[in-house]
């Protein structure tokens, strides 16, 4: 171990601690964003799986039914005909607490007499039997964990209330659930257990079961039970395993997670540039030192090792800090992630993050790997440093300048390659590679763009602002080896901002357009649902008839939406009334409207674009629908644009739905009024008709607004990530520019000596950084547009299956340009201040 040699370079960062610190912060931010997203997603998934596992207990199999559940008679058949005693009926539903903030509560209705083999770990204090027995002694009795009771403010034996389907539901706490271990304890959070009959009554599911839990042994007797089950089960009832069911539910969020991961990877790329930037400066600043060492006989390998060790120290510290930050950030993001999942996918109650091995491991690996990749070029550069005496700065710059056009061409080729890969290979991994190639290619084109822009503005700058401005322009080009890296880093950060901005704008534009086309009714009536974006809670019986009978109404359209299980992820089934007047509400991606409607009214279905893409379905194919009459192959006659759910939509006439499913319920009503009618007045009229029923009655405008609000909520995380990426980039540009300018203290000292005053130095430094910001901003405009194209037309299309319109928003470009310049100017302030303050003699003495 060469102690003195190591000291010679390792003392360097100690002389400029803030510079090393900024690099560490850069790595840390990149790592933090990646693992925070991962931990938040993983925590939500775990919470869901854990609570599913807890309420499933020891069941090996489950029977599930169609949208309307399983008739109670099926349970009796299993007990009597099949003779399977280890079977337990379950009714599930959701309620909302009346606390602030509100909590979503899960209601689990069970049969105390069938429970024993299943969920014995949910032992109420005083023993399972006693606790379960208590459920039967009092009306509206529930069991819950102590934590939930505290949260709800419920005390033993005392009545309290929650909201179910928008209506107040009183209940009594009769026992506390206790389990030994903390994990299960957490799974009991927000869970209310009650008798099955009570649950059926509360949830409007009298006579029906949501599922039947079974324990089927894995032996010959079990096999016999399975064959027997097959004969007694009605067509709509299916045998699945609890894990299968939970898995297919959590898979619903796959696209959402892919999109978040793409964004978190962009943050890491920005972080990578930061390390690259810092290490490049470390090398540039140390060239004289390295040159001296080379003269003394220090080998290239030894220099490379010195730089690698230093970079690794930064990487390790940055990664460690990033993990700590990431865990904190995950807690913050968890709320946003859980809200989106609840808005769009399924109900999950999760309040605390769960730390598991993989997200942390991934964070460590990505952080170290990204650092190493970013270190490679600067390390190679350092090792290549010629011995001191042949070192000529100007020849080094000359070499750089000769490299610039070559680099530019290579960059262009790389960008084209990225574009072709994304365009031609429809896989998400290929799109990531393509996006990365596009980004790196753009960074490589930046130096030549810098030279071009400077050449173009130099005459103007001199005429308008005099010689100092001219000097600034020239300086940017003469120290291109350093300025280009900083400009490229800022350019990428700004391009990401533009890309994400355009993506969100395009999304909004498309969805708002689509909502305008599809949401046509004047007033909508639905039951309050827990999952904001979906209407699977049925309307109370009689609402349709009563609304349809109101005076001053043209017509009422009926909708029934349910989740339809498939072999993979479930899809949304919408059954509805379609008259000729409604045809204009559909925009077709595939199919001939003249043929679609006659076929639709006969026996065909129409499907949404994401479903067609995901399952590679086209007009003329069939879709296998699991109905209460068994599997039915329905011909597809049209593919329509839909931005409501990436899971996919299947639409059919409501009459046909009611033939194939034993489900007389409706989910919502679309009320059409005469042209000049007042829809807000009708909202009030309808509400007044149902004073005691919890109903959502919304006008066309309110529904559209709330749909857009949900959309905006889903972008809350995107915005947080974008902000973080911008901060990372700013930290980077700040570090780079400060380092670059401070390195020129001697040159500035000389300028002071020949008579420039401090104000002119300020001017010089700020003009230089401002110019760099300008170039970064200008280059970012096309690059950001290209990245937006990739996000909108490639990555989104692969992950969600949506065709979006491209929203060209000039203000996004203008903001980006201003951000780039302001960030660069801000980053120039500290060095300008320090340089202007320095005494000329002192500056000249340095070195």
């Amino acid at each position: 171990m060469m102690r003195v040699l190591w000291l010679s370079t390792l003392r360097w960062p100690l002389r400029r601690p803030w510079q090393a610190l900024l690099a560490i912060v850069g790595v840390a931010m990149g790592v933090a964003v990646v693992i925070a997203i991962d931990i938040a997603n993983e925590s939500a998934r775990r919470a869901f799986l854990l609570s599913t596992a807890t309420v499933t207990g020891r069941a090996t199999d489950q029977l599930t039914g169609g949208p309307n559940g399983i008739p109670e008679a099926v349970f009796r058949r299993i007990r009597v005909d099949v003779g399977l005693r280890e079977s337990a009926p379950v009714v599930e539903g959701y309620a909302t607490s009346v606390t602030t903030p509100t909590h979503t509560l899960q209601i689990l209705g069970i049969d105390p007499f069938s429970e024993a083999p299943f969920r014995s770990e949910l032992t109420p204090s005083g023993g399972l039997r006693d606790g379960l027995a208590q459920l039967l002694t009092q009306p509206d009795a529930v069991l819950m964990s102590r934590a939930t009771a505290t949260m709800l403010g419920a005390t033993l034996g005392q009545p309290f209330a929650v909201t179910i389907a928008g209506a107040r539901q009183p209940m009594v706490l009769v026992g506390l659930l206790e389990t030994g271990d903390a994990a299960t304890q957490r799974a009991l959070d927000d869970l209310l257990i009650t008798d099955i009959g009570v649950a059926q009554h509360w949830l409007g599911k009298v006579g029906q079961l949501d599922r039947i839990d079974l324990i089927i042994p894995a032996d010959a007797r079990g096999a016999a039970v399975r064959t027997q089950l097959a004969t007694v089960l009605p067509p709509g009832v299916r045998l699945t395993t609890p894990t299968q069911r939970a898995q297919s539910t959590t898979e619903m969020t796959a696209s959402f997670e892919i999109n978040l991961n793409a964004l978190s990877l962009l943050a890491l790329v920005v972080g990578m540039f930061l390390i690259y930037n810092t290490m490049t400066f470390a090398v540039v600043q140390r060239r004289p030192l390295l040159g001296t060492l080379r003269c003394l006989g220090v080998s290239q390998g030894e220099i490379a090792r010195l730089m690698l060790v230093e970079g690794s120290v930064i990487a390790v510290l940055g990664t460690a800090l990033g993990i700590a930050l990431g865990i904190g950030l995950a807690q913050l993001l968890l709320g946003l992630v859980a809200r989106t999942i609840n808005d769009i996918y399924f109900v999950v109650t999760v309040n605390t993050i769960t730390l598991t091995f993989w997200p942390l491991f991934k964070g460590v690996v990505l952080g170290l790997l990204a650092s190493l990749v970013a270190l490679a070029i600067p390390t190679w550069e350092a090792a290549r440093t010629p011995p001191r005496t042949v070192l000529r700065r100007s020849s080094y710059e000359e070499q750089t300048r000769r490299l610039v056009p070559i680099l530019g061409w290579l960059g262009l080729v790389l960008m084209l390659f990225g574009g072709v890969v994304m365009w031609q290979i429809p896989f998400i991994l290929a799109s990531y590679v393509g996006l990365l190639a596009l980004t790196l290619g753009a960074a490589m084109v930046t130096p030549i763009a810098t030279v071009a822009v400077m050449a173009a503005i130099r005459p103007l700058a001199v005429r308008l602002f005099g010689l100092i401005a001219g000097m600034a322009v020239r300086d940017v080009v003469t120290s291109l080896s350093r300025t280009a890296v900083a400009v490229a880093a800022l350019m990428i950060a700004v391009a990401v901002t533009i890309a994400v901005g355009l993506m969100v704008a395009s999304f909004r534009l498309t969805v708002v357009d689509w909502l305008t086309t599809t949401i046509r009714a004047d007033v909508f009536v639905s039951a309050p649902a827990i999952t904001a974006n979906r209407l699977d809670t049925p309307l109370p019986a009689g609402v349709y008839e009563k609304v349809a009978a109101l005076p001053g109404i043209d017509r009422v359209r009926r909708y029934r939406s349910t989740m339809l299980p498939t072999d993979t992820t479930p899809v949304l089934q919408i059954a509805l009334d379609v008259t000729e007047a409604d045809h204009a509400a559909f925009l077709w991606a595939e199919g001939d409207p003249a043929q679609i409607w006659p076929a639709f009214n006969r026996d065909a279905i129409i499907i949404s674009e994401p479903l067609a893409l995901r399952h590679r379905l086209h007009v003329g194919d069939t879709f296998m629908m699991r109905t209460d009459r068994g599997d039915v192959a329905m011909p597809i006659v049209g593919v329509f644009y839909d931005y409501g759910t990436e899971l996919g939509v299947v639409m059919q006439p409501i009459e046909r739905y009611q033939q194939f499913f034993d489900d007389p319920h409706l989910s919502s009503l679309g009320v059409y009024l005469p042209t000049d009618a007042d829809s807000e007045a009708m909202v009030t009229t309808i509400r007044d008709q149902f004073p005691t029923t919890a109903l959502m009655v919304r006008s066309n405008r309110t529904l559209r607004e709330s749909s857009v609000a949900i959309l905006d909520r889903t972008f809350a995380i995107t915005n947080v990530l974008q902000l973080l990426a911008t901060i990372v980039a700013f930290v980077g540009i700040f570090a780079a520019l400060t380092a670059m300018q401070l390195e020129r203290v001697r040159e500035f000292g000389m300028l002071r000596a020949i008579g420039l005053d401090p104000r002119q130095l300020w001017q010089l430094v700020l003009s230089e950084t401002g110019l760099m910001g300008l170039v970064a901003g200008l280059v970012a405009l096309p690059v950001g547009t290209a990245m937006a194209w990739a996000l909108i037309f490639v990555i989104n299309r692969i992950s969600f299956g949506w065709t979006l319109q491209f929203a060209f928003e000039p203000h996004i470009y203008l903001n980006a340009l201003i951000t780039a310049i302001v960030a660069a100017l801000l980053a120039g302030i500290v060095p300008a201040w320090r340089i202007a303050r320095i005494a000329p003699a002192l500056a000249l003495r340095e070195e």
Partner: protein
Amino acid sequence: MSMIVELRNVEKWYDEGTTRRQVLHGVDMHIQAGERVALVGKSGSGKSSLLNIISGIDYANAGDVIIGGSDINQLSEAARTQFRRKHVGFVFQFFNLVPTLTVLENVLLPLELNGVMGATAHTRAMQMLDQVGLADRASTAPDRLSGGEQQRVAVARALVHDPLLVLADEPTGNLDSDTGEQILQLLTHLTGAAGRALLMVTHSREVAASADRVVRIQAGHLVDDSTGVQL
């Protein structure tokens, strides 16, 4: 006496775009152990280029560069580095010292590179610093020293690992003449003692006179000139 430096027909040129700038023309040179040679010539005549080739920092485009018996021009970059670390001591005009190391550590560095560490290295380095009169400044940072003191440290560092050959490229360039004189005397004195070879570039008449031999270089041509000293 063994031959330490033996140059035969050394050519050096730099390609600048389409034109070729020839810097050294058929240089032959011999320096024996214990010999102290002064290299003189106008600025731009090729002195530094020659020193770079002799030290293995740069390579010759043609000719043989035999130092201590081996043709270093045939060696790989890595092997030349190893050669330099072991057999060459260097004093430059500026930027001699590593700013992040103390005076003592600067002198320890060549020893460490050659695998000498611990107490032996420390004793040897302190001895060297004592010889240049700076033992009491051992733990000072280089930027606290005057220009002359810095060059004395550089001399100590150039000699500490007992190299075959000491090269000095205008080591007095930015010092006043008295101080410069002092440094060069120190250099000739310390090299002569151990039977090493010394090649120093200088503009000083007196220093050149105190050398065993003066070699003049003119536009890349070597003019051996052991008698008269006309600068």
